[in-house]
């Protein structure tokens, strides 16, 4: 038991984006981005992990940059405000996080000489600590699946407008009303998560049954990969699966980020980084054009 408690403080993460067939054919870059960050206190006793997936709007010229900025800003906000944000009202969380994203976008837009609307992007994000607390934020489409004990469930469904090609972005005038906030201190009070799957809309139809609200078996299968494999190997496997089985079902960009709390102590080299906050944007650089 003691061994499990001690080792359960580790979160392992892996993520991959692939360019959709429709964008490849059109010579358009991938418009998804993701960021993962980890924070370890100097004692090494508490680890928190944050991840964000962002999807740039198809019709804007700075979609990828907008997605990168959004993924970075949301994950940094989470690291800065978790877990204290769990004690705050949801409206404060929405307002504070969105302000940070918009500040980041406004700065980049001003430098590049574009309107901020050209950086429109959605986001799904999770931050989880070692003590069973967690916080998730979601704007627009994409989704979050969580594993709590042996139960795997949909934490957040995609939100679209009436039509399939409508959604909400950080730059939308009514974005604030559409940011959904979940966490261990809200609603169902679920705690002690052991895994999360964050994904963009290109993967929605493969992982979620929209009508029944059920989750594909693939979600738990992917999280289980961490039991026997390093995050690097899991990333490689994710990339191969996104490039084959997922892209057969979607012409859109596809992004998946996995967060898992393994049952066993990670082998040397698998450990999360130690010593303060380290932000690891694995997929995309954080240059702001």
């Amino acid at each position, binding site marked *: 038991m003691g061994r499990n408690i001690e080792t359960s403080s580790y979160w392992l993460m892996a993520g991959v984006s692939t360019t959709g067939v*429709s964008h490849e054919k059109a010579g358009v870059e991938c418009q998804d981005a993701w960021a993962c960050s980890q924070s370890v206190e100097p004692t090494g006793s508490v680890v928190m992990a944050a991840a964000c997936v962002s*999807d*740039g*709007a*198809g*019709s*804007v010229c700075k*979609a990828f940059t907008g997605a990168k900025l959004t993924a970075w800003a949301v994950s940094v906000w989470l690291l800065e405000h978790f877990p204290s944000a769990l004690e705050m009202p949801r409206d404060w969380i929405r307002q504070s996080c969105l302000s940070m994203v918009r500040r980041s976008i406004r700065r980049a837009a001003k430098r590049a000489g574009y309107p901020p609307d050209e950086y*429109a992007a*959605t986001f799904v994000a999770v931050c989880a600590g070692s003590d069973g607390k967690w916080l998730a934020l979601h704007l*627009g*489409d994409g989704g979050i699946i969580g594993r709590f004990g042996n139960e795997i469930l949909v934490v957040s469904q995609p939100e*679209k407008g*009436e*039509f*399939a*090609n*409508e*959604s909400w*972005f950080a730059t939308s005038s009514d974005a604030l009303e559409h940011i959904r906030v979940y966490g261990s201190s809200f609603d169902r009070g679920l705690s002690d998560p052991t895994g999360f799957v964050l994904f963009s*809309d290109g993967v*929605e*139809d*493969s*992982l*979620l*049954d*929209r*009508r029944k609200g*059920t989750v*594909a*078996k*693939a979600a738990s*299968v*992917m999280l289980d*990969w961490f039991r026997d*494999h390093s995050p690097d*190997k*899991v990333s*490689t*496997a994710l990339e*191969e*699966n996104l490039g084959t*089985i*997922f892209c057969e*079902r979607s*012409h*859109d960009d596809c992004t998946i980020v996995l967060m898992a709390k393994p049952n066993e102590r990670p082998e040397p080299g698998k450990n999360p980084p130690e010593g303060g906050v380290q932000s690891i944007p694995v997929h995309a650089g954080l240059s702001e054009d």
Partner: protein
Amino acid sequence: MTEEIMQLRKEDLLLNPTSRVAVALCLDVSGSMTGEPIAELNEGISAFFDAARADQLARASAEVAIVTFSDMPETRLDFQNLDRVERLPTLTAGGSTDLGGGVNTALDRLEARKNEYKQAGIDYFQPWLVLMTDGQPTTQSHVLASRKALDLERRGKLVVMPIGIGPFADMHVLSTFSKQRQPLRLQGLDFQKFFAWLQPSLDAVSKSRPGDKVQLDLEGIKGWAEI
């Protein structure tokens, strides 16, 4: 390569219904369409269905209804998956031009289909109304029908494509159905070119994703419209 154990199987994933795009073809079959016009229209519709059924995405996503109007509006083909359409109706011409009645029937069917999608949990795109006439309306019902169409268009709930056939089509009346698209006059009776343009245009809608603004192939319009 990763180990086999890290390869997902198809049965590990889910399959959701394809998002649908509903298109109502609202067609004038009044007496003035007798002869070559109605024959060409039937040919064009047939070619459109053949092309759409040959396209994997269109076959899964496009749903087409045919509403005709002459003395009375009539739903000749209701919305359904293209694969389920066993036989296309053969349109015949005759009678007057109750254009407004036709549009009202088409809009009612579109609304009903959207509700069916909602109840079944199927995502859908903005529906289309393709309105074709070769003359002037013989009733006043088009006044209210055009207000209804304009209101839906203004609220982003409908794409309207008004099309005139031949030199006597009342382009002014057609123009009252859309503020976003001026009515276009078909080149001669080349319905086939119009439908050949329509099918990939619907594909573009079906491929669109959140935040996309679907652009119509304006260059392609020159292939069938008098511009």
